[in-house]
C-alpha cells in the first residue's frame, strides 16, 4: 500500500463506519474522528521530507490518478491534518449534544480525505474531482447543522456559490489542459503557460475558482450566513482553515506552476485589486457586527484579501508573504473561532450585547483570544506581523503604493474591531443577566492553547516557518528569499505598526465614548454619512450577488415556462393532432368494399404507369 494513499483513503474508509456503527457503540464517532485524524497527521508528518509520486491510469485522455508529494504538498498535508486533529478534539466535546452529530463526523472525515486528495493530486482532473467532492461535505455540514430551515437555505446558498465557482474552475482546468496538452501539473510546471489569449481565460477562471474557495469577494456572501447557522467547529475547520489553505495553495500553484504570473502585469493588478477590495470591504462589514461569530467570519474574508494581494504582487517577498499569511491566518483564525466556541458552549450565546467581563471566569480562553487577536491585527512579536510585513514589502515593491495604503488601513480597522470585540466580551462590565460560567473543558482548551502557542512560536521564531515550510515549498518557482527580508527588522514598517496601534486605540476610545458601551464602539462609523447608507443596503442584501441572482432566476423561470409551453405545443399537441387526422383519413378510405379496393389497384397501376414514364420526377 503506497503511503501516499493513506492520508486520502484512510478517512474515506472510516467515514461510512460512523453512521453505521455509532448508534451501537457509544462515543464511537468522536474516538474514530480523533484517532483517524491523529493517524493521518502522523502519516503526513512521516511523508514530510519525501519527494515521491504515484500514478495509476484512470480514464484515458490524460485523466490519470496521479499523486505527488513534494515540499509544498507535504506542508499543506501536515497543515490540513494538524487542524483536523485539533478540531476533532474540540468537536468531541462541543458536538456532543448537537443534532445530526453522526453526519457531522462523517462529513468531517470525508472532508479530511478529500482535502488531502487536493493537496496530493498531481493531475488537474483528479484535483477537480476532490475539489468538487468538498462541495458535498460542505452542503452536508451546513444543511444538517441545525433543525431549522435557515440552515438549509444557507446550505443551498453555499452550494450554489461554490458550485458556480467550481464550474469556473472546471472551465479553467479544461482550457489549461488543452493549452498545455497534458493534465499533469508537474509536467506543466516545467514550462508554465503564458497568460495571453486563451491562457488569459484559463488563468482567470482557475484563479477565480481558487479565490472563491478561499472566500474572496464576490464569492463570500455565504460565509457570514454560515457563521450564524452552522456549528462552530465547522467554522473553525472549513472557512477558517481548510478553505483558505486549499484555496491559496491552488492559487499559488496556478500563478507559479501552471501560468507565469510575472509575464502579465495586468493580471497582477487585477489580483491585487481583488485582494485590496476584499480587505477593505470585509473589514468595514466586520467592524459593525454585533455577533461574535459573524464578526470573525468577516475578518476571515478580509484576511484572504491579504493573501491574494501578496500573491498578486508577483515578487518573492509578496508571494512568500501570501503563503505564510495563509498558514498564519489558519492558525489564529481557527483559534479565534475556537474561543468563540468556548464562549458559546459555556454561556449559550454569542451576541455581544449579552456578553461581558469573561476574562475573569475564562482566563485561558481570554489569553488565547488576546494572542490571536494581536496576531490578526499584525502586532509584533506575533506571527501575523511577520507575514503582513512581507506582504507590505511586496506591495511597496510593485510601485503601486495604493495597495500598501489599503493593506495598512485594513490592519487599522482590524485592530479596531478586535478592540471592540475583546473589550465587549472579555474585558469590561458583566451584564446582570449573564450567568456564572466556568472555564471551558480541557478538550476545548488544548487546541486553543496549541494554536495560540503556534502563534507565539511562529512570531518569536519568525525564521522558523519560512525556512522550514515556505522556502522548500516555493523552491524552484521562486528565486530564493533574501535573508534580510524576513525575520525581525527594526525599520519604518515596524514604526508604522505603532502608529496603527495608536490610531486604533484612539478610535476605540472615541467610539466607546460616543456609543456608551464597548459594544457600540463602532457605531460612529456605522452611522457615518455615506457609510451609513452603504451599511443599510448591505444589511438588505442588495450587494449580495447570490440573492440578486436568485431574484433574477425567478423571472428567468417565468420566461422559460412560457417557452416550454410553446415547445410542448410543437412537440406534443401538434404532431398528435396531425396523426389523429391522418389516421381518421386513412380509416375512412378503408370501407371494406371489394370494388373500392379493386379501384385502388387500378388507380395504383395508373399511378405506376405515370411514374415509370416520367423518370426522375421524384426525389
Amino acid at each position, binding site marked *: 500500500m503506497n503511503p501516499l494513499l493513506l492520508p486520502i483513503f484512510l478517512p474515506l474508509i472510516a467515514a461510512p463506519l460512523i453512521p453505521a456503527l455509532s448508534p451501537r457503540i457509544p462515543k464511537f464517532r468522536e474516538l474514530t474522528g480523533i484517532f483517524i485524524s491523529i493517524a493521518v497527521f502522523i502519516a503526513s508528518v512521516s511523508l514530510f521530507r519525501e519527494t515521491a509520486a504515484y500514478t495509476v491510469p484512470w480514464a484515458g485522455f490524460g485523466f490519470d490518478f496521479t499523486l505527488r508529494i513534494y515540499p509544498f504538498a507535504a506542508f499543506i498535508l501536515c497543515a490540513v491534518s494538524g487542524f483536523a486533529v485539533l478540531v476533532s478534539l474540540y468537536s468531541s466535546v462541543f458536538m456532543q449534544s448537537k443534532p445530526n452529530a453522526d453526519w457531522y463526523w462523517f462529513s468531517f472525515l470525508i472532508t479530511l480525505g478529500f482535502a488531502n486528495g487536493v493537496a496530493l493530486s498531481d493531475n488537474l482532473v483528479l484535483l477537480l474531482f476532490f475539489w468538487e467532492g468538498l462541495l458535498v461535505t460542505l452542503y452536508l455540514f451546513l444543511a444538517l447543522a441545525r433543525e431549522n430551515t435557515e440552515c438549509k437555505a444557507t446550505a443551498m446558498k453555499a452550494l450554489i456559490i461554490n458550485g458556480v465557482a467550481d464550474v469556473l474552475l472546471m472551465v479553467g482546468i479544461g482550457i489549461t489542459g488543452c493549452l498545455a496538452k497534458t493534465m499533469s501539473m508537474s509536467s506543466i510546471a516545467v514550462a508554465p503557460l503564458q497568460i495571453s489569449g486563451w491562457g488569459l481565460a484559463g488563468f482567470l477562471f482557475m484563479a477565480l475558482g481558487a479565490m472563491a474557495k478561499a472566500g474572496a469577494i464576490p464569492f463570500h456572501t455565504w460565509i457570514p450566513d454560515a457563521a450564524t447557522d452552522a456549528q462552530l467547529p465547522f467554522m473553525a475547520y472549513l472557512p477558517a482553515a481548510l478553505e483558505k489553505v486549499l484555496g491559496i495553495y491552488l492559487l499559488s500553484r496556478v500563478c507559479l506552476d501552471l501560468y507565469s504570473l510575472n509575464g502579465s502585469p495586468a493580471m497582477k493588478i487585477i489580483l491585487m485589486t481583488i485582494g485590496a477590495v476584499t480587505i477593505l470591504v470585509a473589514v468595514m462589514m466586520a467592524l459593525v457586527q454585533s455577533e461574535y461569530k459573524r464578526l470573525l467570519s468577516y475578518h476571515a474574508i478580509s484576511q484572504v484579501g491579504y493573501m491574494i494581494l501578496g500573491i498578486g504582487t508577483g515578487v518573492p517577498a509578496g508571494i512568500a508573504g501570501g503563503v505564510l499569511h495563509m498558514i498564519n491566518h489558519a492558525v489564529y483564525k481557527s483559534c479565534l473561532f475556537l474561543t468563540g466556541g468556548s464562549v458559546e458552549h459555556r454561556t449559550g450565546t454569542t451576541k455581544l450585547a449579552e456578553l461581558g467581563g469573561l476574562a475573569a471566569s475564562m482566563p485561558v480562553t481570554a489569553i488565547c483570544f488576546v494572542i490571536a487577536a494581536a496576531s490578526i491585527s499584525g502586532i509584533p512579536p506575533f506571527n501575523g506581523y511577520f507575514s503582513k510585513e512581507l506582504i507590505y514589502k511586496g506591495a511597496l515593491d510593485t510601485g503601486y503604493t495604493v495597495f500598501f495604503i489599503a493593506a495598512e488601513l485594513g490592519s487599522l480597522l482590524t485592530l479596531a474591531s478586535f478592540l471592540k470585540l475583546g473589550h465587549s466580551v472579555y474585558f469590561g462590565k458583566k451584564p446582570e443577566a449573564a450567568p456564572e460560567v466556568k472555564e471551558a473543558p480541557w478538550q476545548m482548551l488544548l487546541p486553543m492553547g496549541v494554536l495560540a502557542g503556534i502563534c507565539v512560536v511562529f512570531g518569536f521564531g519568525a525564521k522558523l516557518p519560512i525556512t522550514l515550510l515556505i522556502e522548500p515549498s516555493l523552491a524552484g518557482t521562486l528565486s530564493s528569499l533574501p535573508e534580510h527580508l524576513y525575520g525581525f527588522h527594526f525599520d519604518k514598517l515596524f514604526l508604522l505598526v505603532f502608529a496603527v496601534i495608536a490610531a486604533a486605540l484612539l478610535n476605540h476610545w472615541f467610539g466607546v465614548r460616543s456609543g456608551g458601551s464597548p459594544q457600540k464602539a463602532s457605531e460612529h462609523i456605522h452611522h457615518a454619512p455615506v457609510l451609513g447608507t452603504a451599511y443599510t443596503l448591505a444589511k438588505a442584501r442588495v450587494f449580495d450577488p447570490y440573492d440578486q441572482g436568485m431574484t433574477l432566476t425567478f423571472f428567468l423561470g417565468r420566461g422559460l415556462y412560457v417557452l416550454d409551453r410553446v415547445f410542448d405545443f410543437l412537440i406534443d399537441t401538434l404532431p398528435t393532432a396531425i*396523426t*389523429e387526422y391522418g*389516421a381518421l383519413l386513412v380509416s375512412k378510405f378503408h370501407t371494406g368494399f371489394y370494388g373500392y*379496393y*379493386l379501384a385502388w389497384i387500378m388507380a395504383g*397501376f395508373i399511378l*405506376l404507369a405515370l411514374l*415509370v414514364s416520367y*423518370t*426522375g420526377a421524384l426525389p
Partner: protein
Amino acid sequence: MVTSLPYFAFIAVPALAALACPFAARIKPRYADILANTALAVGLLTALSFIPEIAKPLTLQAWNMGTGLSVFNNDVFSLLMLITVYMVALCTAFYSIFHEMPDGRRGVWNALILVCAAAMCGVAAARDFFTLYVFVEVTAVASYALIAFEDRRESTEGALKYFFLTAPASTFIVLGVALLMLYTGGTSFGHLAQAMSSSGAGDSAVAIILGVMACGFMVKAGLVPFHGWTPDAYQSAPAPVSALLSGVVTKAAGVYALIRIALALRVIYPAHAANAVGQALMFFGALSIVIGALGAVYQRDFKRMLAFSSISQVGYIVLAAGAGTPLALAGALFHLFNHATFKTALFLNSAAVEKQTGTTDMRKLGGLEARMPWTALTSNIAILSTAGIPPLSGFWSKLIIIVALWKAGLQSYAAIAIFASVLTLAYFILMQSRVFFGKTPEHLAKVSEARAGMLLPPILLAAVMIAIGFYFPLLFSNLVEPAAKAFL
C-alpha cells in the same frame, strides 16, 4: 449443377409430406401434426446447414440452355428465403398442434401448411419468372383455403377479398411475363439480365415489363394502394394462418419478386437516379410506410393493427429495395428476415391472447401482463424490435436501411422512414398498454397463461431477435458487408 438438387428437395419433401398428411391423420390426427412438424424441422435444419458453404454472389445468373437442371437458384438470397419460410412454417405448424379444430380436419390443415411452405420454397428457388408465378399461384390457393378454413363469415369474406384482389395481380404478372417472353425470347432471370445488359435503347421496354410485373407483385406483397385485401385477410384468418400470411406468404409471393426485380435493375442502373421502376418502388414503399402506420394507430382490433403494421414494414423493405444500392439491398433482406420473426411472434401471441380471453377487441382487454407474463414479455420484445429499438435485431435492419437511404442521397425518404419509426413505436405502445399493461379488469381475472407449447415459438423467436441484435455488431463485417458486396 448438382447443388440445385437439394433445392428441389426443399420443395419436394414438404409436398410429399402434404400428400401423406391426410392419410396419416386418418390413422390418428396427431400423426399429421407430427409429420408436418418433423418435415419442416428437418427442412429448417438442412437449410441452416447450408449457411457455411454458401458463398455464391447474388446475380441473375445466365440460364444454361443446354442442361435443364439449373432451374433452381442457389444464391444467398434464396437460402435466406428458404430459412425464413421453414422457420415461420415450423412455428405455424407447431402452434397448430394446440389450435382447436375438429379431429378430422387436422390432416388437411397440416397438408395445406406444408403445401404452402413447399410452394414458397419453390418461389424462392425459382430462376424463372414463370416458374415463380406458378408457385405464387400455388401459394395463393393454399392460403385461400387456409384463411377460409374455419367456416366463419368474416374469414370467408377475407379469403374472397384476397382471392379476388390477387386475381388482377396474377393478370399483371402474367402480362409482364408474356411481355418479357416477347421481348427477350425467354422468361428466366438470365434472359432478363441478358436483354438489359445488351440493349441500349431497350430501357423503356424493360421499364414497361418490370413495371407491369411489379404492379402485380405489389398487390401480392400488400403495398399501398394495392393493399385492400391485407387487413381483412389477416384479421379474419385463423390465428396461425395470420402468422404464416404475414410472416412469409406476402414476403415470398410479393416482396421476393420485387427484390429480384430490383436486383435485375442493378444490372443497368448501378445508381438509383435514372431508374424509373426503382423510383416507383420507392414511392410506393414510402407510401406504404406512412399509410400503414397511420392506419394502425386507431385500430380497435389488435389483429387488424398488426395487419397495418405489416403493411408498413413491408413498405420499409420495398423502399430499401427500390433504392438499389448494395447496402440498401442488404438492409432490405435483413429486414425481411427480421420482420418474419417479429410478426410471427406477434401474431402467435395475439392468437394466444385470443384463445385465452376469447376476444381481440382492445377495448375489452387490459392488464393481461399479470395473468400472461410470458406472452407479454415476448410481445414486448417483438414490439421493441419492430419499432427499431436497440439492441434488438429490428434496430439494426432499420438503421441499415436509413443509413443506406441517406448515403444514396435520398434524405427525404430517410426522413420519412425515421418519422414512421416514431409512429410505429407509438401505436405499438398503445397496443401493448391496452392489452397487457394496467390493471386486470374483473372479467379477465380468471385468464391463465397460454400453454407452454403455444409459448415456445414466440420465446424462440424472441431469443432469435435478441441474439441477432446483440451479435449483430460482431457479425456486421462478416455478414453484411460481404452480402452488400455480393450484390454486383
